[in-house]
């Protein structure tokens, strides 16, 4: 069922509200973790849902419900961050951590081109349990900020602007984070295709 239909009855029917919580809990947790860290993220998400419940009648649908919820959890997390006087590292966006750097010759052409992979569909790869375990490890090897940017972009479909606002960095820096993350995962998958292990 579409959000619009659910919103109409969510305040009167808890079962309907619960469907919304189940639908958006994950993305809200990712956003909260990226701002305030793991230990307080769940608490912040709870507070955000409470605020969303109290204000749902005022939701006018000018943005999507997802964007509205992300704004709420993002604000909750930032307020909490100020209260806790925590600081979050800004991250390193310099170019010295370039990806695929050793794969091109001085003329800009491939010196080590990608070889043919055995599994050429996401289903074929993800149905391999060993690969699924490896993928979790690959994700954890990324920096917190890179993982957040990749998760919000590729798993939850957020726009670059939305990600910039959440992470508090420029669009070009978000691009750098996504570029690096995708290519690191790419190289890990390539290694898995070659060796069959992480």
């Amino acid at each position, binding site marked *: 069922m579409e959000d619009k239909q659910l919103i109409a009855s969510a305040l009167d029917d808890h079962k309907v509200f619960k469907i919304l919580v189940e639908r958006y809990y994950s993305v809200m947790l990712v956003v909260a973790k990226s701002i305030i860290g793991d230990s307080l993220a769940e608490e912040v998400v709870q507070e955000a849902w409470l605020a969303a419940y109290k204000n749902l009648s005022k939701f006018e649908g000018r943005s999507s419900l997802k964007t509205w919820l992300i704004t709420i959890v993002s604000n909750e997390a930032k307020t909490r961050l100020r209260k806790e006087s925590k600081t979050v590292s800004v991250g390193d966006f310099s170019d010295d951590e370039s990806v695929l750097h050793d794969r091109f010759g001085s003329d800009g052409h491939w010196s080590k081109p*990608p070889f043919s992979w055995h599994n050429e569909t996401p289903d074929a790869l993800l149905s391999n349990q060993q690969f699924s375990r490896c*993928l979790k490890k690959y994700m954890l090897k990324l920096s917190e900020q890179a993982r957040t940017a990749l998760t919000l972009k590729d*798993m939850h479909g957020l726009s670059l602007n939305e990600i910039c606002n959440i992470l508090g960095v420029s669009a070009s820096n978000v691009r750098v984070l996504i570029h690096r993350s995708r290519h690191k995962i790419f190289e890990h998958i390539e290694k898995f295709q070659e060796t069959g292990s992480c």
Partner: protein
Amino acid sequence: MLSCKDISELSDEYLDGELPFKRKLSVKLHLAICKNCRRYLNYLQLTVDVVKQSQSTSIEKSKIDEIMNKIESER
């Protein structure tokens, strides 16, 4: 003419459909003659799709219940 390294640098914006028309055309021109870059971009797209499809749907039920209980107690 773009080099293979240029293609790598433009890869994300190309796959996300964010390149300006002329730049996109230059990438397509390169891809028409470069098998390695066609393979590379196919596999990078596969990487994006794998991450997309790997999204965990197993949210802890207890966390959802905690939120619903809190809402119930605030009513």
